[in-house]
């Protein structure tokens, strides 16, 4: 559907973006970043939805259903966990109130 070379360009540019954005990040953010990027590949949910939406035999539908289930878990879980971690980072900033964290 996408011309092979165009896909190659997009692969390359996206890879550079990801690499450049992460380069020079302090160690203390490694875990939230890992979890944040974990959330971002939760976009696989969209693909699983498309797969299930076009599945035809019961077997395909079953696999598609499991796929959507897993994808939804990735997206939702990744979000919650990342948000919880980053929330704490925020409250530790000097200047921010020290009593308002969970």
């Amino acid at each position, binding site marked *: 559907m996408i011309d092979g070379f165009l896909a190659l360009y997009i692969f390359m540019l996206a890879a550079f973006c990801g690499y450049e954005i992460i380069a020079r990040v302090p160690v203390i953010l490694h875990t939230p970043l890992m979890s944040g990027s974990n959330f971002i590949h939760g*976009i696989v949910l969209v693909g699983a939805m498309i797969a299930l*939406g076009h599945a*035809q035999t019961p077997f395909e539908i079953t696999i598609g259903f499991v796929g959507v289930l897993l994808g939804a878990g990735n997206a939702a879980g990744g979000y919650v966990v990342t948000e919880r*971690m980053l929330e*704490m*980072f925020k409250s530790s900033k000097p200047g921010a109130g020290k009593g308002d964290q969970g």
Partner: protein
Amino acid sequence: MSLLPTLIKACYFLAALLFILGLKRMSSPRTARGGIVWAGVGMLLAVLATFFLPDMHNRSLIVAAVLIGVSAAWWTGRRVAMTAMPQMVALYNGMGGGAAAAIGAVELIGYARALGLLHVVPNTSPLQPESWAINGLPPMLSPVELSLGVLGALIGTVSFSGSLVAFAKLQGWMDKRFVFPGQRVVNMLLLAAAVVVGVVLASGHVSGPLIALFFVLALLFGLLMTLPIGGADMPVVISLYNAFTGLAVSFEGFVLGNEAMIIAGMVVGAAGTLLTQLMAKAMNRSIGNVLFGSFGAAGGEAQAIEGAQKPVEASDAAVMMAYAERVVIVPGYGLAVAQAQHKVWEFAQLLIKRGVKVKFAIHPVAGRMPGHMNVLLAEAGVPYDLIADMDEINPEFPATDVALVIGANDVVNPLAKTDPASPIYGMPILDVSAAKHVIVIKRGKGTGFAGIENALFYADNTRMLYGDGQAAAGQLVNELKSLDD
């Protein structure tokens, strides 16, 4: 292009943009919080748009699966303790890998069906180019699409089973490392077999049994590959599988013609690969060493340590610190296990009130994940400016009266400097033994992650305060309060 598909495509574009912007914000502490929200908005947009794709069947099943998946993950994600974050990330990551594998499986099975090899009579013709037009699965995949689809399925499956093993290990469901002779050879053979079957599939010879064999081999490889890796190396491995899932998502996105998946997946793939390298570097290891190394397994003869550990009472320890000028608190993995961060911060606040200069010193790999201690101390409300990193604090130890080590072991082990046979030899450490007095809180004579003795505990200026981290910190708090009364 009619309106609805254009709108849907616009949503996908916005989602990709928001993901990148979000990730950018996440990589700086100042803006990190907003970053995840931006990315979240992008995800919402993309998922909502997908519901409106034309020619989607099984919509009620989709809604049901999304609702179940989201609520289960949301519920566990909200409840889980901060210390269990690494395994949760592993779990969710494995789910993503599984989803990518499932997409690949549906594509392959659909392809096989279209080839008529499975002899299933479809209720509708699989060859309906129009109905798959925008983002559906093309019934007949081009060779490039088929290859990338198979590759994505392979990577996704490995990430799936590997991440689940990582989860189980970190969760404590699988304490022992699973090692047998020739393991590495078996793993390589498994991988080779999976690749060969994959190549056959990608060349268009798609059939049911072959697909099944392919996934079984990939699952097994992910499993066996991860089993021998020690629990504490897991963060690096999880980060690697995170990058794997990203790649798998990107490749499956290509097959589906979905640019948001392609871009988001590839961004994560690259970012995750770099993160993995950075993490391994912070632990003074190489990725290869993490994956195939025998960290702490064999090792030479350890240096014998002379002397005895000298215990101290909580009351004496409290007095020492109450009348000290400078105290540096060094937290380690034990702090996380004992969830002692709140008590320790309460104790530190009491000291500060008495005029003692208190700092927290954090080693880059203290705990079990990068930034572990920062997260815990931040949770307890310790302000940023009291927290020093290794390079900052090491020159200050000679001027420190009391270094309070709580649940840390490897990161303060002087053998890292002196014993070339030690598995942690060469790792930079926090130089606590340079302080006038050292007080160590731990439960007993347990070793740390590296499983080795610690010369610090036998040093002349070291006193051991045995007990659970939280309980010991509580005792210190009480002693300090009674001093004031």
